């Protein structure tokens, strides 16, 4: 009967699908033609065993992927799982005990710090700056490249005061360039994000008169196009003319988007490079007490060549009181990420390396975790 024949075919198809269970491997150490980012830092890693879980910021997602790859390639019996589902989710998971450490773009809120401390039973929860993520101002205007913008102009664009690309404010920043009369479509994030928070913080500190919306993880200014995730912003910029937005550097690179030069406190227009972003972080002051290394970024920095819009992602970890089953691997992994090799690996995938003095301080704090 036809039905029987079809039924058998269907059963075969289902069985084949299930037979997939027989073959499959985790062995991905050979990365072939992808230009494997690491040239064997394995000599510098002291391995630990076990498996740990971490959650948190999407901004440091790429860095974490590169780090886990390098660490796990060198230390086969270790597993580090980082789920990039947002700083808030990471903090909550850390407090609840389902994550061994959390990645967060902003420090714990005052109300949450005691809860995190309680999780660490015998110590406090500290913030260790680990990743410097520059925020790029990306744009897509046909016929325009090498755009330069002062913070005040950026504020005016994103708050809707400047509406066309040939506005005098933009022309003043770009002497001699021909700008079209296209309407500006500014793109921002629809979801809560640490990137929005830091970008808005930059605008409110450097262009306070033009940017009156303060800073929050949610975008507050009216108008513009809202996109979910940096991938959404990147896609929106890529496909429409006349758009401008803000994304992490790694997204600007992978989307091949043009980045604007931003005016810094020294009066120059700084191009986004790892070194330039590092200079801004080097001038930051430590706002935390004791081993806590929360940083206060100086967006007005007068260091020449510094790119001022940066975001620092912290790893929130217990100073004392990490469960003994996960402590060795947490320490070993964070030692790697805070090492020169680790930071160099992150620099290859769209981040700026931590300035040396910050890095050494972080490394010594990690060594003292217990």
């Amino acid at each position: 009967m036809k039905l029987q024949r079809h039924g058998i075919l269907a059963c075969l198809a289902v069985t084949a699908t299930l037979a997939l269970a027989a073959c499959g491997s985790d062995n991905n150490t050979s990365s072939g033609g992808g230009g494997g980012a690491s040239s064997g830092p394995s000599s510098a890693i002291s391995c630990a065993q076990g498996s740990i879980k971490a959650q948190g910021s999407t901004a440091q997602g790429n860095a974490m992927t590169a780090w886990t790859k390098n660490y796990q390639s060198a230390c086969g019996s270790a597993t580090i799982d980082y789920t990039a589902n947002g700083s808030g989710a990471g903090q909550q998971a850390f407090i609840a005990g389902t994550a061994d450490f959390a990645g967060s773009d902003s420090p714990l809120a005052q109300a949450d710090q005691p809860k995190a401390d309680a999780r660490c039973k015998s110590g406090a929860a500290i913030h260790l700056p680990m990743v410097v993520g520059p925020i790029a101002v990306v744009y897509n205007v046909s016929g325009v490249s090498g755009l330069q913008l002062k913070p005040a102009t950026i504020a005016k664009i994103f708050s809707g005061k400047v509406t066309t690309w040939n506005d005098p404010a933009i022309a003043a920043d770009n002497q001699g360039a021909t700008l079209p009369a296209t309407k500006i479509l500014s793109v921002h994030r629809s979801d809560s994000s640490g990137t929005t928070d830091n970008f808005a913080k930059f605008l409110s500190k450097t262009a306070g008169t033009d940017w009156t919306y303060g800073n929050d993880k949610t975008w507050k200014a009216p108008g513009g196009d809202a996109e979910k995730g940096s991938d959404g912003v990147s896609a929106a910029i890529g496909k429409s003319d006349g758009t401008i937005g803000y994304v992490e550097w790694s997204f600007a690179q992978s989307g091949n988007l043009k980045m604007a030069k931003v005016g810094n406190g020294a009066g120059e227009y700084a191009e986004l490079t790892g070194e330039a972003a590092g200079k801004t972080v080097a001038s930051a002051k430590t706002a935390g007490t004791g081993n806590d290394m929360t940083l206060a970024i100086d967006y007005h920095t007068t260091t020449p060549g510094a790119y001022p819009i940066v975001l620092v992602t912290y790893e929130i970890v217990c100073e004392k009181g990490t469960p003994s089953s996960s402590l060795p691997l947490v320490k070993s992994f964070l030692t790697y990420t805070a090492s020169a090799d680790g930071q160099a690996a992150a620099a290859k995938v769209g981040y700026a390396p931590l300035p040396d003095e910050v890095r050494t301080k972080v490394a010594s704090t990690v060594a003292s975790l217990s």
Partner: protein
Amino acid sequence: MSQSPIAGPAETAPVTAGLAAPTDLGPTGPLGGGGGLPSRRRFGRESLFRWFTTASGAVVLVVIVAIAIFLIAKAVPALRADKANFLTYKDWFPDDPTNPKFGIAALALGTVEASVLALLLAVPVALGIALCLTHYAHRRVASALGFVIDLLAAVPSIVFGLWGRDYFYKPVQDFSAWLHRYFGWIPLFGSGGPYGKSVLLGSAVLAIMILPIITSLSSEVFRQTPKMNEEAALALGATKWEMIRMAVLPYGRPGLIASVMLGLGRALGETIALALTLGATYTFSIDLIENGGNSIAANIANKFGEASETGRGALIASGLVLFAITMVVNMIARLIVYRRREFIGSAA
């Protein structure tokens, strides 16, 4: 109880003589009858079966009550911290350390707007396809069509979201511009601004997503119409369409309403597709093509990752509101169905 079209079983004497009459004949179910003859073994299995089904039904109640308790427990602290009126305030800033204010006015209205529009777009098309599948199309075409509908059902919501954001976006934009140009005097199409993501885009994608649910279930319902009713109508000289109107649709109305309700439930709770295709603003307007639109579930998807304790509680409070909306909508639907059930021959 409906009339049984088959004469016979009720009038024939019991086949085996000498057995005692059943003791339990009270209507315990809509179809009456405690079942067969009282054999001890049968009663054992009978009660076991009945117990199992009752327990299964009760599980649903337990889960719902547990979810409701969970939602209320998590929402109350945030609601207490809210400095604005939760039901009438439109913006969403629960994580502001000094002045947390949030309200569901825009979100709830936006959810209802998007879902109702999606239903309006999807239901006529779904019913048309279901009728086509069961009564109009040649058998081979019908199975191909059924395959197509199954294919649509198999596509995950994130793919619809990405497709809507990257590909469907342009046609909708052009359509919005056209609507405004020629019908801009209707308040629904009043916005002349740059067209981005709007309620129209979100609802259209949502309609495409709930189409397979309504179509599949409706076609199953239509398939079950007794051939006798259909043939009787045709024998009386009805055209095909009249036959469908007289025999198929009324018989299937409760089933149809159930499938529409399931589609609506999916639409109300759709998270990721709407997060990608709605504009995520906190305003409400009946202007369908304006850049904006938001829904409770999409808001949860957007804000959850970065929310602190109060933020989470606020999002859960909005989930509670969605619960309430679903309850009201379903109550209305049940009322409509209850009135109709007496006229139909199905088991009620």
